[in-house]
């Protein structure tokens, strides 16, 4: 946040293009709102942390034989889910609230890109994801999670979780500009996100799942991102999962970003 604000106002010779400059101003607004009303971000950290503790002690013994081993398996998935959730609630409801109460009308009557209000919120999400990832790393470490890969690989895993969160945010944004009111956004998001987040290799390997669920879990982009993060954090071979994960990130972004901006521009 610090570096972005400094870039916006500091060196005029290095001015970013207008759409990015305006997005950063609006990202800052979104973060100020988060500091005033931190509920959603607390939610975004507490929910995955709760999943982590529950799954750990519920399934640890049966799935992996011990909670220590299970934590090594479970934690990377919690990180990915956490990064996705931290922004979902605040970005979705805030954008929808803006549409409802007329703030959007003011933005649209200003000479700024139609992308800026949406991108601003998603850029602020990146900061929220970073925070969530850092806190979850702290909790995981306290519970006994240990890095087995290199430090660089750990950063790559965190980066992947955040990148995925950024790309998935556009789905949330799209839902937000479609929905009539903030409650509908929440309902929509939970219906979309629960199967997306839980129908994965999060809690256990997919090969024991019933056929239909296994088919879904193996297509599910979240599974690929979790598998790639798990490999990076545990120092095991990453293989093709990372590429699949990155391709999915690109697909989510390329599909939902234009859809969201288009719907937002047309909404009257």
């Amino acid at each position, binding site marked *: 946040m610090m570096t972005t604000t400094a870039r916006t106002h500091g060196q005029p010779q290095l001015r970013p293009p207008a759409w990015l400059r305006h997005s950063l101003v609006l990202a800052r607004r979104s973060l100020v709102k988060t500091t*005033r009303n931190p509920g959603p971000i607390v939610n975004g950290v507490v929910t995955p942390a709760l999943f982590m503790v529950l799954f750990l002690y519920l399934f640890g013994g049966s799935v992996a034989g011990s909670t220590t081993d299970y934590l090594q398996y479970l934690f990377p998935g919690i990180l990915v889910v956490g990064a996705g959730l931290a922004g979902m609630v605040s970005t979705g409801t805030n954008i929808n609230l803006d549409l409802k109460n007329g703030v959007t009308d003011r933005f*649209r009557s200003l000479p700024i890109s139609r992308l800026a209000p949406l991108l601003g919120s998603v850029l602020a999400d990146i900061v929220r994801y970073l925070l969530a990832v850092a806190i979850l790393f702290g909790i995981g470490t306290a519970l006994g999670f240990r890095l087995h890969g290199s430090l660089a690989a750990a950063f790559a895993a965190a980066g992947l979780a955040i990148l995925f969160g950024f790309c998935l945010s556009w789905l949330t944004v799209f839902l937000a500009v479609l929905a009539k009111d903030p409650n509908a956004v929440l309902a929509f998001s939970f219906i979309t996100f629960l199967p997306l987040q839980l129908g994965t290799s999060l809690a256990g390997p997919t090969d024991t799942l019933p056929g239909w669920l296994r088919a879904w879990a193996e297509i599910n982009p979240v599974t690929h991102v979790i598998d790639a993060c798990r490999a990076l954090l545990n120092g095991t071979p990453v293989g093709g999962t990372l590429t699949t994960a990155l391709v999915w990130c690109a697909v989510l972004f390329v599909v939902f970003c234009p859809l969201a901006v288009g719907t937002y521009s047309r909404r009257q």
Partner: protein
Amino acid sequence: MDEYGFDAEGLAKRFDKTDALDGVTLAAPRGQVLGLLGPNGAGKTTMIRILATLLRPDGGRAAVAGFDVVRQPARVRQRIALSGQHTSVDEELTGLANLVMIGQLLDLPRRHATQRAATLLSRFGLEEAARRPVAGYSGGMRRRLDLAASLVGRPEVVFLDEPSAGLDPGKREELWQMIRGLRADGVTVLLTTQYLEEADALADTIAVIDHGRVIASGTPAELKRQVGGHTVTARLTDPADTDTAAAILTAVTDQVPERSTHHELVVSVAGDGEFFEIVDRLRRDAIGISELSLRLPSLDEVFHALTGAPRTPADDTSTKAA
């Protein structure tokens, strides 16, 4: 082109099956206030949203500050501001932060944006509340901040959508002063309102709109004249004279005067000739008068006559007199 703050020709807009606008033509010379007057659902907000580039018209054309709203929306947005019932400021931010943010979105460097915000906050009497979140502002403060927010970029044309809706009368007067201030600064203003009094008090020209059509337009005085029909109101010093005075009014105008409270008699007259005759006869019979007036119909009466809303008999006679 450029002598107009904004001008529209044959603007049309359909929502589902209703014509929100059905060929609206109106224009305001630069620096003037145009009052768009009409009931709820007449098309006022649609008109503003098209001119502010938030909505695309289905037909017709419109230009703001000389730029076409469909083909050059970016140019238009650099010169306009929007404020009123459907726009808003951010509740969670402070008043100051709201204005600084808008300044930055208009590419003012942060320092200038802060200065501009401080100037506007003091001009609108919001200095003390500047660092408090807007959520704690009163309705009047919020409306003032909203207007301040629209002036950050020194717009040439300002659209005010029912700016005084929900304000109590004292705050409304305050807002009117600010709108007069805009006009004094050479800003062109489009003001929508349901208050006839408001249009009369602020507008150089009034356009009356109903069911998406302009049904009358002109200066407030022209509109009143268009409907015509003067009214005489006489208040008597001694209530005991009421019957005698009523008989005189009936004799002159062939109508039975309305008796309102406070011993007032109200009757419509065909012209000032009848008025002078009434004055003569009252004097001859030595009837004491504490108040006597000859006036054009109020905008309320004009509006009801034009929109065909349920009329009182008095409205009927005033229409006939025209």
